[in-house]
């Protein structure tokens, strides 16, 4: 009895601490939203108003003409969707081959691909930039799209692990029935690993959506910039005029799609991230 009472008290104490922590975590984001609804005088009010006296929605109209926000969203969607959809097909085909097909030097080739994880982007970015500029790809979306179409080693790695849990007998049976290898992939493998593919695809999509370094390297013209570059330029251009509500409104809009995806797929995202960490 004493023991459980003590435990209850300590649990209540921990609950309060976690609540304070949660407030600290969420406060900057709430403040961002609150700023986006203020007018300029409100921003500089001391002491600050957490809830604006009057909600001004006009910044959410202004952002669409103050910078190429809409084209930024479209460009980010083009890059992220093309890469994740085609890249997922190439990655899962490769994972299927690495996990289930027999051919010489399979494991050596896999290790070679895995070694690319040891080469950081800054180490290849200069040569890649020169290569793509010789191909005339600078200021187009191609440098952001094309490399991803060839697949993603992290995705191959996890799908390969996942595929090991599927018995070989299913594949052997299909082979005897005369199903082609593409058929085995499309009709047997793909449906079986769909949940794993979905989780990896969402994580990859969010990664590309949030990407900053390659886009800022390649995209100069405003109409070709991805969303992250557009909002960074909002910040660079409007901070001088201290138009923080405008900057925050654009940033909120840039965060919303990912937040919505996260809230919908929260369980799957958190699960697959947790697995990736535990398996190292």
């Amino acid at each position, binding site marked *: 009895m004493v023991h459980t009472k003590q435990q209850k008290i300590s*649990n209540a104490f*921990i*609950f309060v601490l*976690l609540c304070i*922590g*949660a407030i600290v*975590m*969420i406060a900057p*984001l709430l403040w961002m939203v609150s700023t986006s609804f203020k007018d300029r005088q409100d921003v*500089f009010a*001391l002491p*600050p108003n957490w809830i604006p006296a009057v909600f001004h929605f006009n910044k959410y109209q202004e952002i669409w003409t103050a910078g190429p926000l809409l084209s930024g969203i479209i460009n980010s969607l083009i890059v992220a969707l093309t890469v994740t959809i085609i890249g997922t097909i*190439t990655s899962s085909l*490769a994972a*299927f*081959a690495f996990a289930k*097909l*027999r*051919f010489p030097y399979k494991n050596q*080739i896999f290790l070679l*691909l895995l070694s*690319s994880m*040891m*080469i*950081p982007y*800054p*180490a*290849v*970015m*200069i*040569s890649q930039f*020169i290569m793509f500029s010789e191909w005339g790809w600078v200021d187009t979306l191609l440098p952001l799209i094309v490399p991803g*179409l*060839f*697949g993603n*080693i992290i995705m*191959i790695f996890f799908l390969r692990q996942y595929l090991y849990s599927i018995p070989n007998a299913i594949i052997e049976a299909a082979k005897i029935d005369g199903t082609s*290898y593409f058929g085995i*992939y499309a009709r047997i493998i793909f449906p079986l690993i769909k949940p794993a593919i979905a989780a990896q695809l969402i994580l990859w999509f*969010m990664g590309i959506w949030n990407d*900053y370094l390659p886009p800022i390297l390649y995209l100069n013209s405003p109409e070709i910039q991805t969303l*992250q570059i557009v*909002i*960074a330029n*909002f*910040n660079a251009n409007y901070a001088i005029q201290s138009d*923080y509500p405008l*900057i*925050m409104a654009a940033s909120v809009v*840039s*965060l919303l799609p*990912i*937040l919505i995806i*996260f*809230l919908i797929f929260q369980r799957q995202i958190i699960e697959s*991230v*947790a697995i990736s*960490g*535990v398996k*190292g």
Partner: protein
Amino acid sequence: MKTKSNLYRKEKYFGYLFILPPVVGFLLFTLYPALYSVYGSFTDWNGLGQMNFIGLDNFKDILTDDFFYKSMFNTLFLMIGIPIGLVISLLLALGLNRKIPGTTTFRVIYYVPVISSLAAISILWQWAYNGDYGLVNQFLDLFGIKGPNWLANTATVKPALIIMTIWKGLGYSMLLYLAALQSVSRSYYEAAELDGASGFKMFRHITWPMVKPVTFFLVVTNIIGGSQIFTEINIMTPTGGPEFSSATIVFYIWQKAFDNLQMGYASAMAVILGLFIFIITLVQFKMNERSSFDVD
């Protein structure tokens, strides 16, 4: 027998066909540029004219480059946040591992900064660190503390970045710790409790061994990520901060390569960074092998 060997040969061809895209992608977009960077590091490459071989001159120049040392020092200094973040996230995970209401909600809230784009987060924190009207100083004002203009001050710009990085990464490490903690069977703790073990002893002998591999994984991935910090610096302090005091090594590489067009020199620094990360990753692989033997 003949049909079987035919089927096998077909399997081989399809195997190679299926792995062809990632292999070509690796050769073309990773290996070739990486080797070219190594070659470029021995030249006076400027991205436009001819590349002349100059031996180790770039590396010799780096050794006497104050900006290189400064950006290297800054990069390492910012890593102070790694152990602090790990301690806090382990404590959070220990808290969430208890029977407490709302654990899912907590998990989601703590994870929101992780999924948010670094660009938006950097913009937000730059505003939060504003000397006069920023959220941080308004908070400090509640306690009667007059906060500095965080990002414009050599003494405060690095701590400011560290705080932001911890805030952004907390949810991720917490999640991995929580997953590790949940894999510990409760019966261990019950048995230890019956033996009269103290809370600290239980942590040291049951919890810590279970979270050690995750800690190691997080330390390594954080070092790899931390050595490549760029976005925050590029957005929050576009010039590298007061007296270059927030410039990281990738920021400096970027500046040398694309502002000064000293591609050879920048490549030499990139090679040094690449080697550093290569070694760290190798250590991780080795340690992983060892720890998996432990578990078996």
